[in-house]
């Protein structure tokens, strides 16, 4: 029984990684789509500041295209960390959503620090120097993350249950998901209250350390009951997140990089041109009379046939 939390944590992490990988692969395997960019496009260099594009250039196809990775980073990092779009366009919700998301980031960072601490082989009680800094980071990030996460999740749940514009659009699962976060964070914070913050994170770090060391054959983690319960609940939540629309952290990457910022032109003789040629060979089965797809004619066949030339099937 003592190792149940340990195995839950391993399984939760594994399920999370597998789900995220599968979901990422699903998006990566999407067919090429037509350009649907939306300005400002962050990698446009100086033009990005006002939303301009290389299409402002005369005969742009004869000129090298500026692509600023730094421009993308400058937009992505604040967007991920501080939810800039939400802050600009929906401040009421940002007051709740930001602590929720930032709390999750801090919890994730704290967990990574736990793994790092374990790999250093330091003892929790006697950690000094860099290990001592890590220990402090684990406590600060973990505690702050749980408090912010709880406040944010509770705030979001309250708003979703009371604001008409959110309530009317919410499915039961939307409320359930937030309630689960509230419950999981509450249990963890109860553990901190019962055991003391240092003891709680010391136990948790021991368990995370065992997971990190699993490839080397250690699996002897024993933690107090309330810590074990927290770990089990967190693990279930971790496995659950990618199965819900909360996997938007993956979708958002593709929404930006594959759609909003995807302004790559189709140049003659390019690799992209070959992919497009394949796409144009896809069969068409749309039924309206001006298309009359039969599942055999391909995209080019239909696009190069004028509606007046289509014979009724």
């Amino acid at each position, binding site marked *: 029984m003592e190792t149940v939390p340990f195995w839950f944590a391993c399984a939760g992490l594994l399920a999370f990684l597998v789900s995220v990988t599968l979901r990422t692969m699903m998006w990566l395997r999407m067919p090429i789509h037509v350009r649907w960019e939306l300005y400002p496009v962050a990698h446009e260099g100086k033009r990005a500041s006002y939303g301009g594009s290389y*299409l402002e250039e005369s005969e742009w196809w004869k000129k090298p295209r500026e692509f600023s990775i730094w421009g993308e980073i400058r937009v992505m990092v604040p967007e991920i960390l501080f939810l800039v779009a939400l802050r600009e366009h929906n401040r009421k919700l940002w007051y709740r959503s930001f602590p929720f998301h930032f709390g999750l980031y801090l919890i994730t960072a704290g967990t990574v620090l736990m793994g790092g601490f374990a790999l250093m082989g330091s003892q929790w009680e006697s950690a000094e120097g860099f290990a001592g800094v890590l220990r402090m980071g684990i406590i600060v990030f973990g505690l702050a993350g749980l408090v912010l996460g709880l406040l944010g999740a509770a705030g979001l749940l309250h708003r979703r249950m009371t604001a008409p514009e959110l309530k009317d*659009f919410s499915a039961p699962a939307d409320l359930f998901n937030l309630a689960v976060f509230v419950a999981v964070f509450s249990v963890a914070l109860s553990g901190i209250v019962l055991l003391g913050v240092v003891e709680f994170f010391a136990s948790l770090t021991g368990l995370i350390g065992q997971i990190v060391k699993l490839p080397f054959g250690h699996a002897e983690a024993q933690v107090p009951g309330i810590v074990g319960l927290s770990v089990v609940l967190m693990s279930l939540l971790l496995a659950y997140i990618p199965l819900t629309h909360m996997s938007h952290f993956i979708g958002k990457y593709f929404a930006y990089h594959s759609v909003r910022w995807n302004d790559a032109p189709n140049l003659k003789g390019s690799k992209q041109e070959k992919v497009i040629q394949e796409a144009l060979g896809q069969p*068409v089965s749309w039924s309206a009379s001006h298309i009359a797809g039969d599942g055999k004619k391909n995209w080019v066949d239909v696009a190069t046939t004028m509606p007046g030339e289509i014979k009724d099937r």
Partner: protein
Amino acid sequence: MFADFSRGDDCLFEINQKDQQPLPPPFDDIDEEPLFRRLTEEAKKKYVLLDDTIAVNIPKPETQEEEAQLVNSFLSGLRRLVSREDNWTFLEPLMISLEHCAKCQTCSEGCHIYEESGRHPYYRPSYRSEILRRIYFKYLKNSSTWVHGDIELNWKTVARLIELSYRCNLCRRCAQSCPIGVDNALLAREIRKVASQEMGIVPKELHDSGSMLQLKVGSSTGMNAIVARDNVEFIDEDTTDRTGIAVETPWDKEGADILLIHNAGEIMAWPENPGGFALLFSAAGLSWTMSSDLAAYDGINYGVWYDDFQFARTALLHLEAARKLKVKKIVIGECGHAHKALSVIADKVVTGDLNIPRESGINVLRDIVREGRVKFDKSRNDFPVTLHDPCNLVRLMGIVSPQREIIEAIVPKERFREMEPHGVENYCCGGGSGFAIMSGHNFAHWRHHVSGRRKLRQVLEAFQGEVMDMEHPKYVCAPCSNCKGQLRDIIAYYDAWERAGIYYGGLVELMVNAMVDAQPGYIDWEWH
């Protein structure tokens, strides 16, 4: 509110003018505004009702078979919409938007239609998306309604959803504000696509007398090539008379550098625009031509708003004409959706020697100014000017600075004022996605009272501080035919020329008005 959508035969809601925010002076008394004309009882009996206006004209089914047909064909189209083969063109953006909405309503704050309707919940950009999403998960994926929410699918749901997809200008301002990247405008377009490509249901202005007419005759205006050439010849003569500079538009000139494609609506409604282009291109010594091939003298491409195949057919005709003339590039006149269709969307459906470079006419005009090929006297444009940013050209293509560079050279600095917000954060004119040419039943009233209201508000705000009467004319520069059509209609509807001296026109008109070698007075300030 989702259950109501599938029930009842009447309109789900009506526009109440008392719920709307008053406009800026001198239009700030809402009681003096024209009254929203209600649907006739005859129309209410005959067509599916959503909100006291009609865009699509879907007749109420008379038999259970017809009801079932609406539902079944919609579901069949939805299956094709999420298929890799049938909808590769938009599958990834579609699925991201279908699967990842957090239902936070941030998009609503970006939507001029929602805001100006008096914040009516049915006009939230996410509302129609959420209905589509619930149908997709419940009826295609057999997912739990506990997870994705419930919706009853019947003929009313289908017909109202199609009608609701034509209450969005597809301006994508909502997508710009979405924290995740969900694109409700795209979902509106994809609903239109199912209706068109599977069910054959489209507003007649867009399809029968729009893209179909263009593919058959050559232009949605109904002009065949002979008529178009005659009209342009007349325009050349008129431009010569008005400016004192001989103008002759070259047609079908093989080997020219540029194939210029206008929205043919300019030829019919705003002849000073193609006239201005011809004058400036000739004065600048450019090698250019127009084409009299099918559809090649009309850059419109209505398919971009509702149907991938109608879009591709039109784009291919434009490109084929350019290939035939062996031009170096296609230059697109002042038409926003023609820009986006041919420059951006068509980019992923053409290969090989059909992949002919396309460029904005505004870039070419900017170069004429920058290189000093034509001399301008900005004192000739000594009147207040504001600039409308067409969504297709600006938010969706990132062409923001060339038009401003031109204006800086032809309008006194103190006379130009930006709208707020402007550039890529602009608001749609309210005529986007085909609305500017749709006026069936009382739809024009809806356009003026709801979708176009924010633009009128912006125009009035831009000119606050000026004397608001006809003796003090003000110019709204809108480098897009569709936007000009909408501005013309709003200005006429609210009597904004007589009451506030607000006039509108394109960018080249403003350029020719300031052209040193031309006789003054190209802009005639006459309300037509």
